[in-house]
């Protein structure tokens, strides 16, 4: 099985070269050819407008999924509190459901969760399925897989969204395998294809260097984990929800019996919710250290905002890890993000480029951070920030 190019049809446009995430297409003369290390991922097939990229993979028939309806969210709660990502997903689910003419549902497994139903309704859920049991108080992926799989099989959603939290990213793949469903990881954009009415799921790959759009045509529900902080919650007035209390029976499978939580340690400091701040002032290597971060703190205080940093600033110990912004830190979208001494690596931009306004202060005019900034100042932050503080009369 594989992919090749019909050189008769190839017009040398190089769209396939650009589309290939593995750099496995090259030009030989004025025609494209597929190289040995091709993984047959198929990106070039979709990119080609000449139909020149051929494959011996038989076009599969798409089964009839008309019995699967509804855009569902798997919500997450801890100690009687919803994870904010659950409300973000409900916001996105409302939009998708509107486009499809379907309803929004939510599954919430856990303990001490009954009080959360009104919030779920207020943020857009029309059907709320609670699976409450003491056995679910301590989260274990094996038990949660059993419970959620049963509910999904019962309600047959068309789409199922899960927060890409540490729990979600270990539960979703196991659940998808159980449900025989395709799964897209850590999405940052979701939309409905206007013709096929399927979910197009866009996600960063290759450490944020490539964006890929994924479709799950051959299974239901179409499952995606979605990055926290990216989607917008949306409150709806006077909405009524149907609440279903599901009787939980924890099955005694070998995998369930084999795992035990010995200790759960919550590190309180990890709680900083940067994505609730209106203004974030962030520093990078260019701050030069603690002295520079003192300025960042003062500026943040002046704006009534929070301090954040790049991974370098975290590694240097200038700012604690829970304040790291980026692909491996938090995704934030404040009203104003001020980046000081930050080069703007793609992994950092991934966490902040959706901010409403971005200011960049950097002494290198070629720094990529300027490409995502609304306003930039080229200069030394040790001069610029003190001047800002002075002019703001701080």
């Amino acid at each position: 099985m594989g992919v090749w190019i019909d050189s008769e049809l190839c017009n040398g446009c190089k769209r396939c070269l650009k589309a290939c995430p593995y750099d496995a297409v090259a030009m030989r003369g004025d025609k494209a050819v597929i190289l040995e290390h091709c993984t047959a991922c198929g990106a070039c097939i979709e990119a080609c407008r000449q139909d020149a990229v051929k494959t011996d993979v038989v076009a599969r028939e798409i089964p009839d999924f008309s019995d699967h309806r509804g855009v569902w969210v798997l919500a997450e709660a801890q100690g009687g509190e919803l994870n904010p990502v659950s409300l973000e997903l409900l916001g996105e689910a409302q939009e998708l459901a509107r486009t499809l003419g379907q309803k929004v549902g939510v599954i919430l497994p856990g303990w001490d969760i009954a009080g959360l139903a009104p919030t779920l309704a207020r943020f857009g859920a029309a059907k709320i399925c609670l699976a409450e049991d003491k056995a679910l108080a301590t989260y274990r992926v094996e038990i949660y897989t059993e419970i959620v799989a049963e509910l999904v099989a019962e309600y047959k959603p068309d789409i199922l969204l899960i927060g890409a939290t540490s729990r979600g990213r270990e539960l979703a793949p196991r659940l998808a395998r159980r449900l025989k469903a395709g799964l897209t990881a850590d999405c940052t954009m979701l939309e409905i294809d206007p013709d096929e009415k399927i979910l197009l799921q866009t996600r960063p790959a290759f450490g944020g260097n490539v964006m890929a759009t994924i479709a799950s045509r051959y299974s239901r529900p179409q499952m995606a984990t979605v990055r926290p902080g990216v989607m917008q919650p949306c409150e709806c007035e006077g909405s009524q929800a149907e609440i279903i209390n599901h009787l939980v029976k924890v099955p005694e499978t070998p995998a369930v019996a084999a795992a035990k939580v010995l200790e759960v340690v919550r590190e309180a400091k990890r709680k900083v919710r940067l994505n609730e701040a209106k203004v974030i002032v962030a520093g990078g290597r260019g701050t030069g250290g603690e002295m520079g971060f003192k300025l960042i703190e003062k500026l943040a205080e002046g704006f009534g905002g929070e301090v954040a940093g790049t991974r370098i600033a975290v590694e240097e110990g200038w700012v604690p890890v829970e304040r790291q912004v980026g692909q491996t830190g938090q995704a934030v979208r404040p009203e104003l993000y001020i980046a000081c001494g930050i080069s703007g690596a793609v992994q950092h931009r991934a966490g902040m480029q959706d901010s409403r306004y971005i200011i960049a202060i950097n002494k290198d005019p070629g720094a990529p951070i300027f490409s995502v900034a609304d306003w930039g100042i080229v200069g030394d932050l040790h001069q610029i920030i003190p001047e800002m503080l002075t002019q703001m009369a701080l």
Partner: protein
Amino acid sequence: MKIVVLIKQVPDTTEVKLDKKTGNLIREGVDSIVNPDDRQALELALQLKDDCQAMVTAVSMGPPQAVDVLSEALGMGCDAAVLLTDRAFAGADTWATSTTLGKAIEKIGDFDLILCGYQAIDGDTAQTGPQIAEYLGLPQACYVDNIENVEAGKITVTRRNDEGYERLSLTLPALLTVSKITVAPRYPMMGNLIDAGCEDAAIQIWNAVDIGALNSELGMEGSLTQVVKTFSPKTKRAGELLEGDVPEMVSELLGKVRQAHLI
């Protein structure tokens, strides 16, 4: 104790640079490496080998040149290696990847522990480990950074999560995905490679028939998801660079900030 470590060959994305003019990726001359989390999984497995004579087998699915990562694993001290290579495996999503690796592990048969990396730096999904655990019906722990002990058929591990960390006990056989361990993975050594090479069956090569899989459950054909398109991340605003001396630039900036009602 018998351990299987799953390792993937990946392009070194930390080296990937953007073309300043076109905004496209420059991938020429980028090296292929053992996925960083998988090197950490290998290190944890080899520590168990040091402590309790575990026998460690490295397994990789990929094109023929993925044999390089298995040589590196043998060089680090693994006892055996299996390369899964077949045109039929190409284009697999994580559903089909976990079927393929799951069937290979079933063929190996005798194992107590499976170690994977948490996440591969190319596909970036972190889905393969949990899906293999489900395929094999095993308990799983993701994001493991330390193995405390293995005793009486149970393994105790610590793993990170968004809130802090957890200590877990899993009955063997079990599957762990590994990331952010506290020690640096060991380097491959020529001596190990030569020792491993002396045994006949150092690197076995299996295809679809060897693992008893049908083409319809493998590769692109057996996948449930497809990559529809790929593109470079867009940078959507053109920065306006302010001009003048420092007080002028700052005053203009603060003016704009006030206009936007941000102060």
